[in-house]
């Protein structure tokens, strides 16, 4: 019953035009590089993508923009991407901007069977328009809904054959909540380990959330803003 697949193309075989795909990563850190490239190669269109950012012009989710595969983007920050701006202004691309914490919590809620929750984030702003408002202990909150995707793309550091995952440093970011929110969760990792090699106290994502595991080679891991002590 290993969940291991060897072909990224096979892993995404069942993704069709119009699918909703939730993608891990923050900026270009911790993004599922190989799954995104496979999706670009497959060429399916009219996708709804849920991810904190939308890559840069020639890397990450930017590759799907370049190929005009994205119909709608749900994100908190899309400022690093000129293609994005063009497609948005021309009306090709629909955009839903969601505060970063609300986006993370909506994904967690979706994965946890919580259809909606209340938050103070966005009250009194454009984000609150059209949303249910409710007062608790004298403070106003708005209702936000859980998100579930047809597929989730996750990048982890290590996995075992059951799909237990460990992330590395801030490459963790959205990946654990993304893993819970996909009806089918596909995970790419840098290293596959044997069952029992991960300490059960230190597993970040339980394999219960994972349908397929793939091992990627030669991770590019581009850096958006290289800053050093000497700079």
């Amino acid at each position: 019953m290993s969940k291991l697949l060897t072909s990224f193309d096979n892993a995404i075989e069942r993704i069709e035009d119009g699918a909703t795909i939730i993608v891990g990563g923050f900026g270009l850190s911790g993004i599922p590089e190989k799954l995104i490239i496979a999706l670009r190669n497959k060429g399916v269109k009219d996708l709804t993508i849920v991810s904190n950012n939308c890559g840069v012009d020639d890397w990450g989710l930017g590759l799907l923009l370049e190929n005009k595969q994205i119909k709608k983007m749900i994100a908190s920050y899309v400022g690093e991407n000129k293609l994005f701006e063009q497609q948005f202004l021309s009306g090709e691309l629909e955009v839903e901007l969601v505060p970063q914490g609300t986006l993370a919590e909506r994904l967690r809620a979706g994965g946890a069977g919580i259809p909606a929750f209340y938050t103070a984030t966005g009250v009194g702003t454009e984000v609150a328009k059209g949303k249910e408002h409710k007062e608790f202990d004298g403070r106003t909150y708005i209702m936000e809904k859980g998100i579930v995707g047809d597929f989730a793309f996750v990048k982890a550091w290590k996995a075992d054959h059951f799909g237990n995952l460990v992330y590395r440093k801030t490459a963790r970011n959205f990946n654990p909540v993304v893993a819970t929110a996909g009806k089918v969760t596909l995970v790419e990792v840098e290293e596959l380990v044997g069952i029992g090699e991960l300490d059960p106290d230190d597993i970040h994502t339980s394999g219960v959330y994972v349908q397929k595991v793939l091992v990627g080679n030669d991770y590019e891991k581009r850096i958006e803003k290289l800053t050093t002590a000497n700079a």
Partner: protein
Amino acid sequence: MKRQQILERAVKEIQDGMCVNLGIGMPTLIANMIPNDFNVMLQSENGLLGIGPYPQKDEVDPDLINAGKETVTAKAGASFFDSAESFAMIRGGHIDLAILGGMEVSENGDLANWMIPGKMVKGMGGAMDLVQGAKRIVVIMDHVNKHGESKVKKNCSLPLTGEKVVHCLITELAVFQFTEAGMELLELQNGVTLDEVKSKTEAEFTISPSIEIRA
């Protein structure tokens, strides 16, 4: 120079033992000014509590960045966590202080800092979460824009990041605090007169007794 004055005043808001979130851009520069004997944990909303200095060239790690996507390090005692946990920390009131940049602040403490209509929308990132969640919100910004118009306004003209969320505003001219009673001028920056602040501030504000006496 102007910026330096703002930053030097802003760093005084940080007390020993605090957990602090510094916004992207100018606020990030405050990190280097925190007294060495303070034990302060800086939070990065992408999933790190305990940001260290920028890395040496051979330490650079693409898996270790801050919310501004800059490569950083983690100091001893740091922890990594996922984005939901990071914002649970922020929204649950566990971060003592957030110091954020601003485009406009209104006299009732509204903040606008994420969007200029007509320009490309980049997104609010974590700003709307921070202003509602952190225990104390300090905004640092220039007092006037490049046309000399006051950015400290009766009402914000730009789309809001949050309503009545600012506790303290620091500009190159002055320091204000916001309470139920309204906006109060607390301090004048070095060499600045009360008249200058009055003339460059659209918002209505009261003046702290300590300043009245000096003036």
